[in-house]
Structures are given as structure tokens and as C-alpha cells.
């Protein structure tokens, strides 16, 4: 299974029946394929959907129906459309139970940086800052290290923050790491990965339980 799908499949386990979730662009969007069938989950999209369904099949696209990443999508029965004001009122008032976001850097205290590399990448903020700051739980889905090989999980972020101390859980191609008041805890390992590899590729102190770790 490609690592992106492994991450998405594991991330789907963080969702409880009846919750409202928001999926960022990229790996988070793949979670749609792993939502537990028959369990009611409400997917919110910033561009004005509550009750988003899977991506539209080829030939069945509706030009007026896209997700927040501009891909053609669908809705489930009982969906609602609304304007951008209502969409972000849902976000900022704390009605999103879990937001799944990407990351450039995550600090050991849960600080998240994912919106700008000054002088290099300036895509804009979009809805990420409000999601990171106001969702009840923020789960970051990312590769464990950057393309340069540098750890993405660090003691302190060097980039401007999206939101401070917002991340609760980090799911990478190598591990599941929980952000706690006592620092980072290794909770699970991807198939074929060792504790030593995760520790080596993590740029902040990582606490490891003495028990055997579950695999995902």
C-alpha cells in the first residue's frame, strides 16, 4: 500500500460516529476512501459543503460542485450548501470535530507551520489558519521528513506559524506520534519501521513506551 494511503487509512480511525471533519488538500483528502461505511460522518468543505461525498467519477462531474482543492466532488444525502461566511462560521465557532491538515513543520509543543516559506513559497493562507486554530482536534498527516531529508518534527518551528500549540496527533509514513503536555510520545509504527529509525528522523525528543508498539 502506498504510504499516502497507509497514512489516510490510519487517520480514518481517529474519526468517531456523528463527527464533523474537514480534510485538507493532499493526503488528508484520501481519507474519503477509508471512511467507515455505515458510520455517519459529516465532511465539511471550506468552499461551502456540509456532507461532502467521494470525488466525482469521470464523466459525472458537475461544474458547480468542487471541493476546497478544486477537484470535482459529490455530496451525500442530507448535505447542505452554503456561502463562505457560513462555512467559516462553522469552523471558527468550533463545530469541526477533527481537522486533518498537512505540515511543513510541527514543533514538540504542537505548533504548526504549513502556510508560508518566506521568500520562497507564498500560496496564501486559505482556510488553514482558521481550521488549525479552531478545530476541536487537529491531526497532521505528512511525510516524516521533508524532501531535503530534514525532519519535519522539530523542537521549535523556524517558519511562521499557522497556529500555536494546535496539533494533537501526527500521522506520518513512519509513525503515529501524540503531542502531549509532557512532549511527544511515539504511539504506533508503520509496517517495517523501527523505533530507532523514527527517533533518528525526528528532530525533537521522542518518548517511547516500554510496551510493544502497535503497527499500522
Amino acid at each position, binding site marked *: 500500500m502506498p504510504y499516502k494511503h497507509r497514512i489516510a487509512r490510519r487517520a480514518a480511525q481517529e474519526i468517531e460516529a456523528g463527527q464533523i471533519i474537514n480534510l485538507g488538500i493532499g493526503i488528508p483528502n484520501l481519507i474519503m476512501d477509508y471512511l467507515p461505511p455505515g*458510520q455517519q460522518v459529516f465532511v465539511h468543505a471550506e468552499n461551502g459543503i456540509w456532507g461532502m461525498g467521494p470525488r466525482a467519477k469521470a464523466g459525472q462531474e458537475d461544474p458547480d460542485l468542487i471541493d476546497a482543492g478544486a477537484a470535482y466532488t459529490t455530496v451525500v444525502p442530507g448535505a447542505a450548501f452554503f456561502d463562505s461566511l457560513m462555512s467559516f462560521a462553522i469552523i471558527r465557532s468550533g463545530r469541526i470535530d477533527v481537522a486533518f491538515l498537512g505540515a511543513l513543520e510541527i514543533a514538540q509543543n504542537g505548533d504548526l507551520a504549513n502556510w508560508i516559506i518566506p521568500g520562497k513559497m507564498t500560496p496564501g493562507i486559505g482556510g488553514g489558519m482558521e481550521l488549525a486554530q479552531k478545530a476541536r482536534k487537529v491531526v497532521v498527516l505528512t511525510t516524516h521528513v521533508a524532501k531535503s531529508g530534514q525532519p519535519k518534527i522539530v523542537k521549535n518551528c523556524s517558519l511562521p506559524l499557522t497556529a500555536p500549540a494546535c496539533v494533537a496527533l501526527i500521522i506520518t509514513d513512519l509513525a503515529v506520534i501524540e503531542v502531549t503536555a509532557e512532549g511527544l510520545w511515539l504511539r504506533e509504527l508503520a509496517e517495517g519501521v523501527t523505533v530507532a529509525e523514527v527517533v533518528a528522523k525526528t528532530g525533537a525528543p521522542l518518548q517511547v513506551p516500554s510496551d510493544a508498539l502497535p503497527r499500522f
Partner: protein
Amino acid sequence: MGNSKIFSVGDACRSIVDGATILVGGFGQPGTPNSLLRQLLAQGTKQLTLVKNDASEPGLGISPLIEAGRVDRLIASHVGLNPLAVAQMNEGRLKIDIFPQGILAEKIRAGGAGLGGILTDIGLHLGSSLVAQLVEVDGISYKIEPALRGNVALIHAERADEMGNLVFAKTAYNFNPVMAMAADLVIVETAEIVPPGAIDPDHVHLPGAFVDRLVLIEEFGPEYGVLKHHALQT
């Protein structure tokens, strides 16, 4: 359905505690959640702060709660149609805070939209008499009106689907969506609960994301009908 939102009126309202701040939909009678308010009266909840556009009329809407001495404070824009509320205010038994109607709506919306408040020039000439903080932006003075939220919202909708998506009817729309946006627990009474998909997603007035509990109205008393004293006489 994983977690059903459909409750009996008793189960829906039981968790409302004494001292709660309750946001109530309605402008006059249309859109007023009469059944939920009747339940609140029956279960004896007291020391309430109510937030509603108006004080209703004697015997209607929130007035029975006021008449029974269950309301300590009312935040509203107009109380002129309820002499009983005005009398309690004059006797010092009911504290009433009055805001311009649209500003009251905006304060609540700020609470419901996760904002700290709004800046307005309405009533600026009254100075600080409404306990407002002043601020200057680009050389213009504004009042800061802090956001307002409630523990509970009591809402009346024409129709709901099982997901909690709501549709309001005509002028029964009014304060209902904004009240629902700004409360921790949102309880909706409605005339009809339909399956998911029965409401066109483009016709939803308030998405179910804001709705926690749905109650089917069991008894449409005369307060839901035409009030003769507001009708043209033949």
C-alpha cells in the same frame, strides 16, 4: 443513523440547568419555539437569562416564563408589547438590557461565527450609556460590541431532515439561524422531520452542523395559529 438527533421534548430539554443563558428564536410569534418554552416552564427551570428579539406578548412565547418569575434577565431589542415584562422591570424583579435590533443580531452572530465582537457606529451619539468601549479605525470612532453566546438555543423550524438541516418559513426565519449559531447546545422544534436528501441542499437555511437535537412538535396550540388581535377585523 449513528447518533440520532431526534429527541422527545422532555429528553431534549432536561439538561437545561437553572441559571442558563438561553437564546430564543422568534420575532413576535412566528418562529417562536412555543413547545420547547412550555417544556421549560413545566420542568421548573429558573434563574434564566433569556436572549430574544422581543419579550413576546402576555401568555405567549417567553412571557409565561417571565410571569412565573423564572427569568432574572432579558436581553432584547423591544419589549413594548409585553406590559407584564415592563412591570417586572419597573419593580426591579427583571433586568432588561436593550440593544438596537440589528446590533443585537450582530452581537449574537459574532458569538456564533467565532469572532470577538463587532465595531458599529449605531447609537454612537448615546456615548458610553450602553457600557460600550470606543475605538478609532482610520480616524472614525466606533463602539465595540462584544460577542454574545448562550448555553442553549431554542429554535423553531418549519422542517428539518434527520441530519439537522433546517428550513424556516417566511417571517418565522428571523432570529432563528443566528441563535442556533451561537449556543453550545441547539434544540430545535419543528413541524416535520424528513429523511436525509428530502431537502434540496440548495434550499437549506441552516446546515445541520449547528443542530444538536430535533423535537417533533406534538401539539399545535393556538399560539401557533392566527392571533385575532393582530388580524384585520371584518
